[in-house]
């Protein structure tokens, strides 16, 4: 019994310590904005590995998600004789939920795990300590550009996901199933609001980008510097990012869309 209490206590203390370290880490990484502004080269390089390399998986998934929504939506809506509402159904589900959430999950899987593995390996091979020896702050030099790159890429990726998805739904709905082209777009425009839907969806993706980059970088930086430690950290990144994104999504949805 006493043993159990002791373990519980030490686990609690360890988790609080981790929260503290990650908060300190975040503030340190955020403070690196000066470094990033002085060397935009670093940011561009990271935008490439975080954003451009995720681009393909985002567009292809977006296309298929949109096409599936088009098919499923058509089947359900045709029971009620309201196939014209396909546009609003596809667009609302993409812009409000699927765009930010699915692209954030893909982002965590594609870019987040790569970031963790990269940073963890840098730590394991003592590149980070090497930088410190040369009086280069590794957080400002290595972490900050990656953090800001993830933070900036995420809303762009989510917007692309929604756009491609809506076009995919259009391809299936209008091109294949014969929904009227005009009503596909006009129903969408009549029911989606710029502030309520598009801006809120973008805010969601910004929050998810922030959370996913933070988790990925911190897990890498905090990894046990062995090959096993790095592999565990990479797993933790994907699992924790998925939980955090879905949990935050519920909270944000309740805050944004709860009152009407």
């Amino acid at each position, binding site marked *: 019994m006493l043993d159990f209490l002791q373990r519980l206590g030490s686990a609690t203390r360890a988790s609080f310590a981790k929260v503290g370290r990650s908060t300190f880490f975040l503030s340190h990484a955020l403070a690196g904005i000066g470094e990033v502004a002085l060397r935009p080269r670093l940011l561009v390089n990271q*935008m490439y590995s975080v954003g451009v390399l995720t681009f393909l998986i985002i567009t292809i998934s977006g296309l298929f998600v949109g096409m599936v929504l088009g098919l499923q939506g058509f089947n359900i809506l045709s029971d009620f004789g309201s196939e014209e509402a396909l546009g609003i159904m596809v667009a609302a589900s993409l812009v409000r939920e699927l765009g930010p959430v699915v692209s954030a999950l893909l982002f965590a899987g594609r870019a987040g795990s790569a970031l963790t593995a990269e940073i963890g390996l840098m730590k394991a091979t003592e590149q980070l300590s090497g930088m410190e020896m040369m009086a280069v702050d590794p957080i400002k030099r290595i972490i900050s550009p990656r953090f800001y790159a993830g933070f900036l890429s995420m*809303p762009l*990726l989510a917007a692309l996901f929604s756009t491609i998805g809506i076009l995919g739904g259009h391809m299936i709905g209008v091109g294949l199933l014969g929904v009227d082209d005009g009503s596909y777009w006009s129903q969408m425009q009549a029911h989606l609001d*710029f502030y309520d839907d598009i801006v809120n969806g973008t805010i969601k993706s910004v929050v998810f980008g922030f959370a996913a980059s933070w988790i990925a970088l911190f897990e890498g930086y905090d990894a046990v510097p062995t090959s096993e430690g790095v592999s565990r950290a990479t797993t933790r990144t994907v699992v924790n990012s998925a939980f955090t994104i879905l949990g935050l999504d519920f909270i944000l949805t309740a805050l944004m869309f709860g009152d009407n």
Partner: protein
Amino acid sequence: MQHSRTQDTLVGLFVASGIVGLFFLALQVSNLSSFVTEDTYLISARFSNSGGLKVKSPVSVAGVRIGRVSAIRLDKQTFESIVEMNIESKFNTLPEDTSATIYTAGLLGEQYVSLEPGGSEDHLKNGGQIEITQSAIVLEEVIGKYLFKKAEEE
């Protein structure tokens, strides 16, 4: 960095396509293009029943949309519904004796306010009130009345 040129181009392409996506969503998908912060003025109308009317429902004259419903409140004294509408300023020549009716677009479609201009020389101003109104038609009520009449006849 050896491939920095191609990398720059690809990053540029990525950022540009992301921004194009955002613009596409803003202009093509949402209703941003249909109300580009136009000047509007407010008029209100009292209905004994505003049915399924919602905030942002269209307000139209002769089928042309000239504004949107901005608020729906309940008058605590008379238990009437007060519907406030934002009308675009370019349509500022609505006569004072305009009447308002709540119609349904299609049998089960959404409800909208239709304004029927009268013959008065004076125009409705900001904060003006429409006196002549006709409430929303509630389908169940109509069917109920019809059935009641049918039963009475027999």
